């Protein structure tokens, strides 16, 4: 018996050994290095100099751009993620019916989220919202002779990035659609028999049953939204302008690390990001018991 267990252990570790090696080499060791660097001043070429908490002090008290990038990122995340999920849910509800066209619609709505992260789409987006771009041209075509200068105004420029995030609601839509299909029709029928109207059915039955899926999406997308890089890097050509209006946090880390070679400072910023994301995830989990409904399995 004991021998069997030992061989099981050996086999198990043999199979997962790539993960353990990779986890050590590409996660644990880099994280330890990053933590150490965050207390140093380091330009990649000379030896790191221990500076204690100076990086963090500078960040919180001396660096206005840091606060600006936080503000930009929070606006981006807290506007973009909920709006994207709401769009996804509305369209999923629309498509949750038996019609031959639904398959086609699903494909069309999903297409943007398949290509959305690419450089090509970022280039496209930049040219749609440009001064002479499609949007202004269409407005003019429909008789509105007032150009919206999206990239001259910090707030408007940030909203073009948020629109790009919302535009890619397709993958959440697919997940919601799968969730909707799992709700037994008998629930809705029972509610209809009891005389519930559409809104009551939606808020009392559909939404609670979907809440675990919504919660999962909310957590994962909030985390990944904090890491958005490509659109900001392409659309504003890596500068985060105008007036730092699109200076997303990860773009600022990138600038600090690879344009100014302040590796220590950038590492400290990354740790602040980790703490922020950690706290937000914790808050989401803590509040989940008030609105996420887990069904007990007994059918």
């Amino acid at each position, binding site marked *: 018996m004991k021998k069997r267990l030992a061989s*099981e*252990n050996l*086999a*198990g570790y043999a*199979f*997962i050994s*790539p*993960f353990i090696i*990779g*986890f050590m080499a590409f*996660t644990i*060791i880099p994280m330890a*290095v*990053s933590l150490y*660097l965050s207390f140093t001043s380091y330009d990649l070429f000379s030896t790191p100099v221990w500076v204690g908490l100076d990086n963090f002090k500078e960040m919180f008290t001396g660096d206005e751009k840091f606060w600006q990038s936080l503000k930009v990122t929070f606006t981006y995340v807290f506007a973009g993620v909920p709006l994207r999920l709401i769009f996804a849910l509305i*369209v999923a509800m*629309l498509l949750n019916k*038996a019609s*031959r*066209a639904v398959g086609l*619609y699903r*494909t*069309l*709505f999903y*297409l*943007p*989220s*398949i*290509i959305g*992260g*690419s*450089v*090509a789409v970022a*280039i*496209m987006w930049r*040219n*749609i919202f440009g001064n*002479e*771009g499609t949007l202004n041209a*269409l407005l003019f075509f429909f008789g509105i002779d007032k150009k919206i200068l999206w990239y001259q105004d910090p707030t408007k420029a940030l909203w073009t990035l948020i629109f790009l995030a919302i535009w890619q609601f397709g*993958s959440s839509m*697919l*997940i919601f659609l799968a969730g909707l299909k799992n709700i037994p029709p008998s629930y809705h029928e029972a509610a*209809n028999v009891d005389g519930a109207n559409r809104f009551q059915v939606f808020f009392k039955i559909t939404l609670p049953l979907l809440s675990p899926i919504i919660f*999962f*999406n909310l957590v*994962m997308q909030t*985390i*990944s939204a904090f890491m958005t*890089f490509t659109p900001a*890097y392409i659309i504003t050509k890596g500068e985060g302008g105008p007036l730092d209006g699109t200076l997303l946090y990860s773009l600022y*880390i990138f600038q600090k*690390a690879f344009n100014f070679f302040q*590796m220590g400072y*950038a*590492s400290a910023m990354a*740790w602040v*990001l*980790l703490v922020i994301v950690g706290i937000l*995830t914790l808050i989401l989990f803590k509040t989940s018991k008030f609105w996420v409904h887990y069904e007990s399995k007994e059918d």
Partner: protein
Amino acid sequence: MKTVTKDTGPIMTDPVISYKTPRFKAKKWIYHILTGGFALIMLYPIIWLLMSSFKESSQVFITAHSLIPKPFIWSNYAAGWEGIAGQSFGVFIKNSLVIVGLSTIGAVASSALIAYGFARIQFKWKAFWFACMMVTMMLPHEIIMIPQYIIFAKLGWLNSIKPIVIPQYFGHAFFIFLMVQFIRNIPLELDEAARIDGCGRFSIFYRIILPLITPALATAGIFSFYWKWEDLINPVLYLNSPEKYPVSLALKLFLDSETASNWGAMFAMSVVSLLPVVLIFFLFQKYIVEGISTSGLK
């Protein structure tokens, strides 16, 4: 499932409206006009990009309100294919394919091995390692980006594809998770039968499990392709000479040297860069939809 007769399509959830009445038909039309119209608005930017790639560069923004190129020209594609920074666009595509191919093979093969270990073998500390893997899914990339860069620089791996490709050979958390779910649905009796027939651990994995999880392998392969094809930050960090650039970074070059005369070429090559993505999407839609619905992959 639902109370539908097999030969007719629509489901009657609302008892008041019955099939074939004018009111039902009107509702159906309104539904299709609304949904289809919204789909068109969503896709308008892509259609505009495609049509602009057939316009003369000087006309792109003068006729930005119109989708119809006048005159319709192909020369943007020829001009774009000549490339940038002394490299033909074909070179960038070849580079992308090498990076994507090597990464995808590594990510799928290693993830399958690891997933089998997690799904089928009871070993000490398994729960701990599984939790570690789940945590890596939620870790911001920024935190490891800088030290990784420093480590790869010290190893002398800069300006090569090694830092982009090699980490893929140690499993990818999303793919492992997806495959573990898949393997758990395969009856244990199959493993037992193979064991009685004298199969060892690895041949059970290789002969029994692997063929049965091909849908999960396909899903993982497709997403690995997508992520690596569109990846920008790693090439920006690790590749400095244009002859090694992948497509994503080449497009960035086009953008950096943006002038009124090369819009057409930039749009044309943007379309070219999206072609494989869209093609794979239409060919393998089933796996993509399944992958997203079961594991929340993006």
